[in-house]
């Protein structure tokens, strides 16, 4: 089946509505959250209508059905990521996944490989989303470890020449985004993973902007932990994934403790169930997990390589169009080399918030501001940008609508 975004759009009921007095919806904000296909919406509704029960508990048919669906979703996601099924942990989103890893490391006692102390280093980059920066800032503050970071070059790439000075014997954690949500830059993993493993550090990958858009295989990448959010990958809100290599999950202490994550409990002590249960205390977001299972099936049926190829064409087209306008400055790589479909830019003389408001009046949804990456936008000298982010249901027509909208805004604000 050849890839046709117009056919794909029919799977997403939101595209049958109009915006701002009858205008066609031009949705260019999938980097913030994606729209949902009917099959995902149905999966959530069906769970509540037909199978609702607390998973892993209850001696009744509904509990069995709910558990089968829930664990079935785990298997689907494991296959989608090239992971083992017991390595897939459900959280409520990538933010929780990253906090889970950071807090669990903070719980590690002396002697545990994750124990951090003064003199140890945590390495991040200047292009991290706040969700992959602040948990590590806080962990550093709690443990006395030092937070260091890769700088970002003017064209929006990591400065890899810093590897020898940043990744040293004292480096314990390297936490990095796979694709920048602001710049669109896809970071090279091989060299960094190799250097990190040479000194015994673990690599945590924030894959929020890559898992929905390209084929991701955790084993091929050679990384140690990965986080992403379901809602950016045509799945429901309220569900995310934390993946970790099995032997690391065995040694990593738990973060949230409580029901269903234990092996045994007395009044004064507890021991832990093996992963994934060890990291999933409490009754989980069941309908959302099941919805995410259906979402990855939906993406897989289309094919992640086909989606990536489509986005490559769209991104290349929009990048060329943006770069052709003198008043527009694209923040991030100007070439398609290792570049994904998040395009941030400024328009001379128009503040992004005003541009976003104008585009909204034309039915065009974009994101404006610092995109939860304030240190990055400040370092680039642009406190705020406008971002268009592309996905499988976008079309060249959407790109053209954006360009028309920008030109109209330039006339409107310079009247």
């Amino acid at each position, binding site marked *: 089946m050849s890839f046709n975004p117009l056919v794909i759009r029919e799977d997403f009921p939101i595209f049958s509505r109009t915006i701002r*007095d009858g205008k066609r919806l031009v949705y260019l904000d999938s980097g913030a959250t994606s729209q949902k296909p009917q099959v995902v919406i149905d999966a959530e509704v069906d769970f509540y209508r037909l199978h609702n029960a607390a998973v892993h508990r209850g001696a009744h048919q509904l509990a069995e059905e709910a558990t089968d669906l829930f664990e079935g979703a785990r298997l689907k996601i494991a296959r989608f990521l090239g992971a083992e099924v017991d390595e897939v942990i459900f959280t409520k989103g990538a933010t929780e996944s990253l906090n889970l890893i950071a807090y669990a490391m903070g719980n590690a006692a002396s002697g545990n490989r994750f124990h951090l102390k003064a003199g140890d280093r945590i390495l991040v980059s200047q292009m991290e989303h706040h969700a992959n920066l602040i948990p590590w800032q806080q962990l550093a503050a709690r443990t006395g470890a030092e937070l260091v970071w890769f700088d970002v070059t003017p064209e929006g790439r990591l400065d890899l020449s810093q590897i020898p000075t940043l990744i040293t014997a004292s480096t314990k954690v390297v936490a990095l985004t796979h694709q920048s949500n602001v710049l669109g830059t896809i970071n090279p993993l091989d060299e960094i993973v190799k250097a990190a493993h040479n000194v015994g550090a673990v690599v945590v990958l924030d894959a929020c902007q890559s898992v929905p858009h390209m084929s991701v295989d955790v084993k091929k990448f050679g990384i140690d932990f990965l986080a992403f959010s379901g809602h950016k990958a045509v799945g429901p809100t309220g569900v995310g994934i934390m993946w970790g290599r099995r032997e690391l999950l065995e040694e990593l202490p738990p973060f949230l403790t409580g029901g269903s994550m234990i092996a045994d409990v007395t009044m004064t002590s507890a021991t832990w169930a093996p992963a994934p249960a060890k990291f999933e205390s409490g009754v989980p977001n069941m309908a959302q997990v099941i919805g995410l299972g259906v979402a990855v099936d939906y993406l897989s049926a289309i094919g992640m390589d086909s989606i990536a190829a489509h986005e490559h064409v769209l991104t290349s087209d929009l990048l060329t169009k943006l770069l052709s306008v003198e008043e527009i400055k694209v923040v991030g790589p100007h070439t398609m080399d290792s570049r994904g479909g998040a395009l941030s830019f400024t328009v001379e003389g128009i*503040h*992004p*918030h*005003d541009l976003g*408001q104008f585009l909204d*009046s034309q039915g065009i949804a974009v994101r404006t501001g610092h995109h939860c990456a304030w240190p990055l*936008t400040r370092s680039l000298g642009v*406190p705020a940008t406008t971002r268009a982010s592309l996905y499988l249901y976008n079309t060249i027509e959407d790109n053209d609508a954006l360009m028309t909208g920008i030109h109209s805004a330039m006339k*409107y604000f310079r009247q």
Partner: protein
Amino acid sequence: MNLDNLYQEVILDHYKNPLNKSLAKDYDVQVHHINPSCGDEITLNITLTGNVISKITWDGVGCSISQASVSIASDLLVGKTLDVSESITEEFMDLMQSKGKKSGNELVLEDAVALAGVSQYPARIKCALLGWMAIKDASMQASNK
């Protein structure tokens, strides 16, 4: 909704030619306010003479709504007593929360009634209030000195 309700001529004029946008060297209190959702920032200096606001100067970066609003507020509230300034600010806040149902009393709010359209765009109310909140904060600190 018509975008012209939001971007009144008066707002775009203040945006292009902002009033009092040059930080005075002498002041009683300096405040720095940030809108964390969009990154707009403002630094504002205030001087009191007795209980009268005698000087407001500012500098900042932000959208047309936030920049025009602080320009308007800095012009409107200077020369007012702290009590009067507070009551005008409250009337402006009330206008911002009106969801498009109020047009604002021009005798009290003067140019600030041009911002009435902002109340129909919930995401922009914080933009319009940034400068007013900075003046309120600076006034309180200055009067407590």
